């Protein structure tokens, strides 16, 4: 029996060393739905400064979340990074996140942008205002998201699919403010105003507005900032034709979402993982996000990029972010019913 045990052990250890080469427990392992280009450089800097190696696995937020759930306590992941609050909420309810008590995080991030139980923390914030064609729309014609259901916009709105989580979260914010009946009515009107069936990404919508296929769209500001800062003259020409309008300034404020981070329950290397979380809200890291991807820094004392500042500033919807996550399924059902493809 002893002999069998020993040989099983030997073979298994050999197998482990074969498969697990490169992954040491001392490393911090990150599952991220931020693409490699938008997270790896920061992780590398962190490693250079602290000597802690970081392994990265990128993927779609939901797929990573599913993998985390299935892997359970044995998961190699220490941290989970997503680009939308709905997924952070889902991770928390699935019981795969762990509370973090960190004065650094609590001081850097205003309470609106983090979980009440400290299960997740915003890293950057991302606005989704109305972006319109300067020559065909006057800013005086615009006011609230709700007004986009007005028949005067018939055939003038471009937007991406309801499968996109940015749109789902935006609808959730309306659902919280106005209730189900009013939201469905609004969605019906909005869908009736679409100039074409939803397709493509935010950048595609911006290009369509600039080209005259429609007069306005809802899009995240960093896409517009990217076009404005592009090396290509035609991209800059697209941005030059567009302008940002901040809706709902007289009531709840414009819709903002976050990219954020959570510590996993399975984390083997909590101390270093928290160190990495804290690093990501340091001034240097926040400035990097602001400059490289034109997102709004979550930290108050770091300024937005010049590009973003040129879009003006706005009052942000102060709805509790976790509610957006909570209502995600309901919102999608309403969008289905309204025929938003």
């Amino acid at each position, binding site marked *: 029996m002893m002999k069998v*045990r020993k040989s*099983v*052990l030997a073979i*298994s250890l050999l*197998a*482990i060393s074969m*498969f*697990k080469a*490169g*992954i040491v*427990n001392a490393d911090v392992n990150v599952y991220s739905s931020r*693409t*490699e*280009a*938008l997270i790896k450089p920061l992780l590398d800097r962190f490693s250079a400064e602290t000597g802690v190696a970081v*392994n*990265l*696995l*990128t*993927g*779609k937020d*939901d*797929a990573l979340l*599913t*993998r985390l759930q*299935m*892997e*359970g306590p*044995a*998961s*190699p992941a220490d941290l989970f990074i997503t680009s939308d609050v709905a997924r952070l909420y*889902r991770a928390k309810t699935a019981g795969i996140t762990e509370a973090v008590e960190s004065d650094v995080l609590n001081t850097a991030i205003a309470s609106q942008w983090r979980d009440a139980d400290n299960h997740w923390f915003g890293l950057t914030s991302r606005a989704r205002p109305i972006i319109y064609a300067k020559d065909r729309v006057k800013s005086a014609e615009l006011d609230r998201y709700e007004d986009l259901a007005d028949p005067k916009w018939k055939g003038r709105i471009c937007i*991406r*699919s*309801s*499968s996109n989580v940015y749109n*789902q979260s935006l609808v959730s914010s309306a659902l919280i403010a106005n209730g189900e009946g009013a939201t469905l009515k609004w969605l019906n009107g909005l869908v009736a105003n679409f100039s*074409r*069936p*939803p*397709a*493509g990404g935010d*950048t*595609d919508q911006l*290009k*369509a507005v600039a*080209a*005259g*296929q*429609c007069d306005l769209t809802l899009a995240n500001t960093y*896409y517009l900032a990217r076009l404005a800062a592009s090396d*290509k003259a035609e991209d800059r020409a697209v941005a030059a034709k567009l302008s940002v309008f901040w809706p709902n300034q007289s009531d709840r404020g414009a819709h903002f979402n976050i990219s954020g981070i959570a510590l996993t329950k399975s984390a*083997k290397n909590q101390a270093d993982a928290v160190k990495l979380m804290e690093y990501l809200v340091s001034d240097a890291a926040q400035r990097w996000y602001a400059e490289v991807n034109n997102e709004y820094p979550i930290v108050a004392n770091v300024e937005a990029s010049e590009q973003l500042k040129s879009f003006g500033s706005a009052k942000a919807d102060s709805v509790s972010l976790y509610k957006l996550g909570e209502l*995600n*399924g309901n919102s*999608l*059902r309403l969008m*289905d*019913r309204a025929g938003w*493809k």
Partner: protein
Amino acid sequence: MNHTSTLKLTALLIGVLLGLPILSVIGQSLFAGVESISHLWNTVLSEYISNSLMLMLGVAVGTLLIGVPTAWLTTMCKFPGRDWLNWALLLPLAMPAYVIAYTYTGILDYAGPIQSTLRELTGWGYGDYHFWDVRSLSGAILMLILVLYPYVYLTARAAFFEQSSLSMEVAKSLGYSTPKTWFKVALPLARPAIIAGVTLALMETLADYGTVQYFGVSTFSTGIFRTFYGLGDPASAALLATGLLTFVAALIFVERYSRRGIAYHQSKSTPRVRQLIELRGFHALMATLACALPFLLGFMLPALQLLFWSLFEAELDWPQFINLAWNTFYLAALAALIAVILAFTLAYAQRFEKQRVLKLIGQFAGLGYALPGTIIAIGVLTPLIWFDHQLIKLFNWFGIANIGLLLSGTIVALLIAYAVRFLAVALGTVQAGLNQISPSIDYAAKSLGRSTWTTLRLIHAPIMRSSLFTALLIVFVDVLKELPATLMLRPFDFNTLAIRAYELATDEQLIAAAPPSLLIVVVGLIPVLLINRAITRSAS
């Protein structure tokens, strides 16, 4: 005898292993709640179904209309350009559907260069003129046709190659004209192969996610994702996936049924000196055009656009790309090899152990081809993680803690997913090759006292060379292009070209996505060309 019973056991084992992921999807669907289902039923389901059916119908008609005539022309006729069109027609196989969709959108969209120039020249604005919208159902159909017709071309060409010219001669001596010979003899003989090719194209169509999602066409495949993630309802998503599986099973059944009782065996001894029909003048021109057009639209134009973007507008990081290309290449090669070995074992077991259960296993394990990669990935993870957790318990019993997940976070998981997803391709092609060999050869070998193994080595393997190569080729290129399963199952810090291209594309940086997309095509070209040479050589 010993060999065959080991064979049977191995086949059963393979069937169980590859069937598990599919079974776990079906199992999950049992937990679907009434509320979600009635919501789907009342709102989006009819659109998913009608779009998926339209997509399939369009792709079937399109791939047939391109694949069969081009295959016939290049094998039977002589016309200018035939020698290179013969292999050039295969090249779209290396072009992922989502990449060709991005490229054509860049060219044909309202904001793209063609329509912008048109507006500049004419002074028209939006709504003043009618222009086909590439981001539509018809656009998705066209994109899929352009990259999927090679499946039909490949199988049809193989069938036309195999046809002994004797039957054609006989038909001609009976006074049949050339077109009549074609419709009465050549086409019916090639029918099983052609249908097999169309079936492959249709299964790819059903599993496609990237193209339809980008074009905003709601199909079963996009619906599964919306239900899974948007509604946060995995069980209902599994139910949709099971519905898809049932449909595919029915499709496969109809395909098998349509060739019931038909068995074509050709002995290799038939002299196959083919007299090529020489086309001249107008006919030659039309033949060249008919073969050049699919190649130009399905490969040349998008490849040039990608090349242009890569060279003039994107930044290239060569060392990184070489690393990605190598990862992608060895992963695809390994997966292709595994899939073909598994398929060969299953096909062989079916030939010698004529048992229903083996046949069923083959058909069941082949269903994975029509499932979107993410669903397969979840199906693979479920049993694999269960196994890993059992291992952890075992090690705890030995007093060792914290070994972590052993298999599920490694390339092993990826390879299993590829095997599940692409077994159907390998199996279909290998079976087709094996079926060409008359059973009388097996009997002769047996009566001479040769073991199954020797018969395989000395007789079957050499004859089946071209089928085996074809299977390797298709799986290789398929893995190269595969995205969702790779995305979900790969280990830490392991990326492929498809993943790099996808990440840039989802971040809406299509031009930056051009170099990795182009490299997928380039890496895919190598085996397409090599294996094509091997196929044509062994067939002539």
